[in-house]
């Protein structure tokens, strides 16, 4: 277990370094990009004096490293902001204030987080079940008609953009058949049943697309395992096909599926942004799209950092799970 403890420590240190580096990169990229932030923030009709005032207020005249330092300071110990008339304290972890609304970015984020979490967590359960299930089924029925049907369905899911599937689902289910009302977010605390019904279509559209990837991977990983020597051993010892597929081949696919679920967090969040926009769910994604359109840099940077944070953490967790699933990794 000592080796495993060391492995955990190394992973944690690596994750921290990665997070810091991501924050530097994101900060520099956004605040050093061409285009006058003050001008964009203030709007095209601002006078030069107004622009200058905004720049001073946003500390845009400070050198970049100093601003990053302030940002880090805010993150770890909190920071005071003057909003022209009053001073507002932004407690750690402070991601800054929105240029648009003067609200704290973190507050904005936290308000939107439950929506996004509801969407992604529910969809993840679905895509793992549907994806891995389809993969197992097509590996088991390999070479038969049902496998071919599943393969075609998987490919179709793989090739459909999430916003097209969502749109079609919405048009067919809500518009034409009127089986469900057009989704509107209901808080879980208010009415769990309505929460689920309203999220059903967003879940499905996000999950079906992602499930295609998992089905493909599960199938190919299982087929690969089935071609390995140890499967031959169990066949040669009279173990039945069901146990071979369900026990040995599936176990071999576990590690790659974990790896994919981690690698996929980024793309799934991308999918969530599209889904939220399409269905009008007031989540982080929709907020980000809005912030991007009005060039509200603190909100954009804060959101990107939070998302990157989730991705990095998910990857670290997956690494640990992967190591647990395949202990040889620790030794390597």
């Amino acid at each position: 277990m000592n080796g495993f403890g060391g492995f955990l420590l190394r992973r944690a240190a690596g994750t921290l370094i990665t997070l810091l580096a991501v924050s530097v990169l994101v900060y520099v990229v956004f605040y050093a990009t061409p285009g006058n932030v003050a001008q964009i923030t203030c709007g095209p009709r601002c006078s030069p004096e107004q622009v200058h005032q905004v720049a001073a207020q946003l500390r845009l005249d400070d050198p970049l490293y100093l601003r990053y330092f302030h940002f880090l300071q805010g993150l770890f110990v909190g920071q005071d902001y003057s909003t022209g008339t009053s001073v507002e304290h932004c407690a750690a972890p402070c991601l800054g204030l929105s240029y648009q609304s003067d609200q704290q970015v973190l507050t904005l984020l936290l308000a939107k987080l439950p929506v996004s979490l509801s969407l992604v967590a529910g969809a993840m359960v679905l895509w793992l079940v549907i994806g891995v299930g389809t993969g197992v089924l097509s590996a088991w029925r390999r070479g038969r008609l049902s496998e071919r049907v599943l393969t075609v369905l998987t490919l179709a899911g793989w090739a459909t953009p999430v916003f097209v599937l969502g749109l079609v689902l919405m048009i067919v289910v809500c518009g034409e058949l009127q089986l469900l009302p057009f989704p509107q977010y209901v808080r879980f605390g208010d009415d769990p049943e309505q929460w689920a019904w309203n999220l059903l279509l967003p879940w499905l559209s996000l999950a079906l697309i992602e499930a295609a990837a998992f089905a493909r991977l599960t199938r190919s990983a299982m087929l690969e395992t089935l071609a390995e020597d140890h499967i031959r051993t169990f066949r040669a010892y009279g173990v039945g096909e069901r146990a071979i597929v369900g026990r040995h081949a599936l176990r071999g696919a576990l590690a790659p599926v974990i790896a994919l679920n981690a690698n996929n967090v980024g793309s799934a969040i991308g999918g969530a942004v599209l889904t939220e926009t399409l269905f009008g769910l007031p989540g982080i994604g929709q907020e980000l799209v809005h912030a991007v359109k009005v060039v509200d840099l603190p909100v954009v940077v804060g959101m990107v950092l939070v998302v990157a944070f989730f991705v990095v953490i998910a990857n670290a967790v997956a690494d640990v799970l992967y190591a647990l699933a395949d202990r040889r990794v620790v030794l390597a």
Partner: protein
Amino acid sequence: MSEALVAVEAAGADITAPAASGARQFWRRLRAQRAALVAAAVVALLVLVALAAPLLTALEGQDPTTYHPGLVDSARGGVPIGSLGGISAEHWLGVEPQTGRDLFARLVEGARVSLGVAFAATLIQVLIGVTIGVAAAMGSRWLDQVLSRVTDIIVALPLMIMALALLAVVPASFPRPVLVALVIGLIAWGNVAKIVRAQTLTLKGLDHVAAARLSGWGAVRVARRELLPGLAAPVITYAALLVPTNISAEAALSFLGVGVKPPTPSWGQMITAADVWYQAAPQYLLFPAGALFTTVLALTVLGDGVRTALDPRAASRLRVGTGRARKEDAA
């Protein structure tokens, strides 16, 4: 459409036993796959359409940007006049609601944008990824550590979110399709670098590379003659699967309104606009969505075919079972 899957799958690819006599065997194996052949034909057609887009619109006698207010019924909110969204001899696929712009012209111009952006982005990803990956594998321990860490960071950046944010802060004067290609290319090269690094390390350990060093050749010549050709197969495989991923990414960004902006047509953007018109003018939604679906599907199937043709192990997956002809006896 998930790049992550492609990366996870490609990471397991085996290149230590590369296809023996390269190109000819590759074509033979590719031709043996009917689905891949059909996909290749579709892709070829799409590329032709994209290349000849101005010619095609000229043939139709239309262009993608001219408004035809006379062809839409302003009294009904701008629904195209005529059946099936105004399909006629002049407007082969009808016209856009509200503006009356020619749909066929916008669709083929959209193909140009879509494929152009995707191929350019793939090229950037491959160039950066191969450079970084080879440098990490061939360079000193220190360089490898730095580059691998940078790659980890790049991989951690979620493409959609970063692209969405980046596209917002770059001045509008920058040509949009070029920008989209650049942004996708500059953010999503991490997995290429990871794969190339791993493959280079494997190749570096092969004896024929050691033998070439013993011959007295310098490091550059050894890398060029013995290493890079071995990288071609995994890089081509990965690139072939990246193209459809990039098509989806461009469409998604344009759908969100931060990708390619009007008046330049783009399928993603058309789908957003068509959202509210699906009842009055369904073809407005169907054509771009169908085009997008077909393109991504064809490119994916072709990519799979290329992989099967290049990676002997993928091909061997088709023959599963105990009696997989024993290496020793069937060879």
